[in-house]
């Protein structure tokens, strides 16, 4: 049953993958300009350009172009940048590390913030503390991340001078792990707060549900101390659904990192996106888009399968 489900889930992802590539290809085709016009010196005569276009297959029908482009894509070729002429896959490869570091740190930070806040507000349901904490969570989801980021830079970075406000390492510094961590704090905090704001609600609801279960009443009736009850019985069961929700945050993180990387000058794919946007470097943009979509697609796949393994109650439908 399980293997069958995984197999089906994999099979379903295949048309979705092709849909993603077709969609991206069409958008790229709508973009003004073409590789030849962009790459080549405008002084070259028109006839030469035509020959060049023919060679590159730009006069082929659209579907032929798509198939050629797709076969390149499957080999990991994403084309060449209009502005730097570098290979797009190489550029993305160089910049993805910092983004993954930032994203994963933010995710961990967000969950670490959300769990205690959610649990406390569930335990103190309808008390003042509950209202304050849920209010804070709402503030976290409602504050524009760029505003929060600018605020942090202004107060923590500039007024207080506690933390660096941009880049991944100090200029001219050694670039050790400590240095990177110090630079990581502010951007990760901004993204983490946005995630925590959304997760508090889930943690609280999940915890409330578990707190009402009969087995907790039984545990209490047996005279087990409240703290042990919460820790051993409630929390563990409340956290299973929370962990699986984490997967849904991946697209948000990949999208949100663009703004954050821009503000904090973090040298990841978010900043690469901005550079490409400003120079209208469409091959790079498309490459980024496809890579991001594939990351999302595969994390969703993994999450669904993990969920099926973790939660035996799930129906295989």
């Amino acid at each position: 049953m399980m293997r069958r489900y995984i197999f089906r889930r994999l099979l379903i992802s295949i048309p979705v993958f092709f849909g993603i590539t077709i969609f991206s290809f069409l958008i790229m085709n709508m973009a003004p300009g073409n590789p030849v016009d962009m790459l080549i010196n405008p002084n070259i005569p028109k006839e030469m350009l035509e020959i060049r276009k023919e060679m590159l297959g730009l006069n082929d029908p659209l579907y032929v172009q798509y198939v050629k482009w797709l076969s390149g894509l499957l080999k990991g070729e994403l084309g060449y940048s209009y502005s730097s002429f570098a290979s797009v896959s190489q550029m993305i490869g160089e910049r993805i590390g910092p983004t993954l570091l930032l994203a994963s740190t933010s995710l961990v930070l967000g969950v670490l913030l959300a769990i205690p806040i959610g649990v406390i507000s569930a335990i103190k349901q309808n008390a003042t503390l509950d209202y304050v904490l849920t209010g804070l969570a709402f503030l976290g989801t409602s504050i524009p991340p760029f505003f929060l980021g600018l605020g942090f830079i202004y107060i923590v970075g500039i007024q207080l001078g506690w933390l660096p406000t941009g880049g991944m390492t100090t200029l001219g510094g050694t670039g050790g792990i400590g240095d990177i961590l110090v630079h990581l704090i502010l951007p990760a905090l901004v993204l983490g707060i946005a995630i925590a704001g959304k997760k508090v609600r889930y943690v609280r609801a999940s915890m409330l549900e578990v707190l009402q279960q009969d087995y907790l009443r039984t545990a209490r009736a047996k005279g087990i101390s409240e703290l042990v009850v919460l820790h051993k019985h409630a929390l563990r069961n409340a956290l299973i659904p929370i962990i699986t929700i984490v997967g849904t945050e991946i697209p948000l993180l990949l999208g949100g990192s663009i703004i954050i990387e821009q503000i904090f000058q973090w040298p990841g794919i978010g900043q690469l996106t901005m550079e490409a946007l400003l120079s209208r470097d469409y091959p790079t943009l498309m490459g980024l888009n496809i890579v991001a979509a594939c990351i999302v697609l595969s994390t969703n796949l993994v999450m669904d399968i993990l969920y099926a393994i973790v939660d035996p109650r799930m129906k295989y439908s």
Partner: protein
Amino acid sequence: MSVTKLSELSWRKEAPASEKKESSEQADYMIETYAGQLKRKFFKHKMAVWGCTTTLLLLIVGLLAPWLAPYQPNEVTAAFSAPPSLTNWLGTDQVGRDVLSRLLYGMRISLLIGILTVVMYVLFGSFIGMLAGYFGGWLDMLLMRMTDIFLSFPYMLVVLVIVSVLGADIFTIMFVLALFKWPTIALLVRSSVMSIKQTDYVRASITLGYSTSRILCIHILPNAAAPIIVNATFGIAGTILSEAGLSFLGMGIKSPQASLGNMLHDAQSLTVLTEQPWLWVPAGFVILLIVLSFNFVGDGLRDALDANA
């Protein structure tokens, strides 16, 4: 006619007994009207009431912006980057335009984009979700894979890329923002429709020979409305936030047109950030206020419409 005869007959024969029996029974069911119940639950939620009031105020201010604003938004009124004063309550920007006036106009644009975008994608998403949920089968499979495709792209990234390809006028922005949001509504509506489809009142509508469009629009959709309304309210908040982000990055509404996001764009320069806080702090707070109010309204609606709460 014989029909009336019968009705009188059955009326006399059993109505008194049944009336007596059932009117006492009826007392238990006469709780309060659905609308009354919603109102009571919603207004019990203090933050929702606050959000509702603020939202209304913001909408009024947005509507009346041309009359409330002391200056035209693009009018050069005083010195460049002048700090707040009696004539320019929130100071002026780098080309001498009144910040307060631009703020009011920017708010108007943000609210407009937020609401219209959500209307667009809610209509389209509901339509798709309804088709998928009601007809099922291969159509459902096809439409669901389509939503999978759209949901695979990270929202901010794909919106930025497509806006840069298509150009950043206000309608394109709304279109692109909506283009990647409808799948969430479609999924929501699909699952509601799938469960409502199994109810006896829909079965009864089928046996009564109603047309499919009538069944969908009159008997299914209104009963699936609650989660759509909640999602749409949160959606307005989210869309306003996304548009602000887009404009902040310089890819959304462009200067000289005022928008809350592009007012913060300039704060990326260190001088503005540290020495001219009136240029970005008010705009940031206004975005926060709008988004927070819509989120509170959404939360209140969710609690009120949730049958279990």
